[in-house]
């Protein structure tokens, strides 16, 4: 039950923080809407038949923006406030506290994304109910991978605050090379290989297959790429935890927990 208290603490803190940073949240929402409408109607008119795919993958990108940026941002902000050391003094440890924080952030983002989904689907004339269960499931699997990736970047931010700026760039790179705008097989093989390292890429590719082939739940379960996505996410989470724990250890040895 004590873990529930930690979750509650993080959810309440995240809500209060969101109120404080409402302008940044609005900016992210507007950026996503502009990107979506721009890509949908101006840059990629040929993708009009895949509007649902583009809409869902854009919203998945919005999630990645929130998770990846937020994890690094949390570390950086905590360093500035001097609260980072208090997080490390929790008997539950920083990985647990930050994981619950990411969970709280995802809960909040889910609310925002749901409203965006409803609004944008009405604008582009897609039925809000056309989203399928396989699309939701692959989005959840991708989010798990994004969490691991975010944890890795958070660990690196712990050692060097400059990583926080890099994480922002990475999210925008992911937007363009994830296969959301141009299918991955149209990229140069080297860029395609690099793109596959990002957790968003596999999720987007799977979303494209689901959308274009009207894949049902059985087809999703039987598809080998589903399991590839799950394995990728598990590996990303394990790697994220290991990198973060390594960074914690290094920071404690070097005494740089609060250095900004």
């Amino acid at each position, binding site marked *: 039950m*004590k*873990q*529930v*208290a*930690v979750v*509650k*603490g*993080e959810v*309440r*803190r995240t809500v*209060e*923080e969101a*109120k*404080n940073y409402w302008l940044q949240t609005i900016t992210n929402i507007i950026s996503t809407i502009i990107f979506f409408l721009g890509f949908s109607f101006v840059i990629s008119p040929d993708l009009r038949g895949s509007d649902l795919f583009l809409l869902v993958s854009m919203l998945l990108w919005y999630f990645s923006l929130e998770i990846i940026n937020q994890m690094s941002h949390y570390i950086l902000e905590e360093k500035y*406030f*001097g*609260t980072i*050391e*208090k*997080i*490390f*003094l*929790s*008997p*539950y*440890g920083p990985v647990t*506290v930050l994981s619950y924080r990411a969970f709280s952030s995802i809960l909040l983002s889910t609310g925002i994304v749901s409203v965006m989904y409803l609004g944008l689907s009405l604008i582009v004339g897609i039925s809000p109910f056309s989203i399928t269960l396989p699309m939701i499931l692959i989005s959840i699997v991708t989010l798990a991978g994004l969490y691991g990736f975010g944890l890795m970047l958070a660990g690196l931010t712990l050692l060097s605050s400059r990583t926080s700026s890099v994480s922002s760039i990475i999210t925008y790179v992911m937007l363009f090379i994830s296969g959301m705008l141009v299918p991955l097989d149209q990229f140069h093989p080297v860029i395609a290989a690099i793109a596959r390292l990002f957790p968003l890429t596999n999720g987007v590719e799977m979303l494209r297959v689901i959308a274009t082939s009207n894949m049902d739940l059985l087809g999703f379960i039987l598809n080998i790429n589903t399991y590839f996505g799950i394995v990728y996410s598990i590996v990303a989470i394990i790697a994220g935890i290991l990198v973060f724990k390594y960074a914690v*250890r290094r920071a*404690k*040895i*070097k*005494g740089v*927990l*609060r250095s900004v």
Partner: protein
Amino acid sequence: MDCIPVKIENISKVFGKGEKEIRAVDDLSFHIGKGEVVCLLGPNGSGKTTSLKIVCGLIEPDSGVVKILDQDLSKNTPLLKHIGVILEGSRNIYPYLSPLENIKYYARIHGFDGDEMISKAEVLLDSFSLTERKTSPCSTLSLGMQQKVALCCTLIYDPQVLLLDEPTSGLDVLTKRDVIKTIQRMKDEGKSILLMTHQMDVAEKVADRIIVINKGRIIIEGTPKSISQYIESSIYSITLQENASAAQSLLEPNIKAEITDNVIILHNSTQEDISEFIRKLTAANLSILSVTKNLSLEESVIRLMEGAQ
């Protein structure tokens, strides 16, 4: 059987390598008993804060062991629930949260929740006269109030061990008095407290034991009184009615002295040295107002630190 709540055994820490190597803590050992306040004193860069961060596990020592309630902290992180820390240089609170939200947050990440916790938070806020501002964002509070909030955030989960780094710095006299009273109350409740401060009056009021460190090593350890007495035994202060510069020529070459206005401070002097010097002063028609061996704790520690430089 009661154990010693905090035991620090031979901890050492070096930062950097080669020419940039800094030995921050050098084979430091001490303990804090139940209901005891131990005060770490030392100049800036003497290794106080590094020592505190090692004690709570925020910095990993190169060698040595920190035992909390007889268990090795590095192998047993749940022990952290028994440790409350106030760190210097920041208030350790979220500026966009209110005092009440901050307190509740820190209670929850230590596993405490429910009506009892909220009632306790209200009591703490009241005891620090923060009730009126309990829902205002902390960024709108004065530094003193923020420091009080940071204390409440630490006291809410009732830790057995308190590590306080400069808890009274930057506070007005009334707030400082409140914090000192809180430390004394915590001590009476049986908590083990490690206090770092540059304010000797605070150390003098609350410390049971003082440890003076420099370059990461202990210079002297004892009660505030015993430290003053140790220094007093070799330092005398003589106050003249007139300017004391004329007394310079009367000093024996082997006696180290400082002369400021009408005060002469003699270092490492014996009773015989003093008697001889007083005889010379009288013979030179210099009027002696007082001869004293009483130095304040602050003066004593300054002398110790100067001696260790």
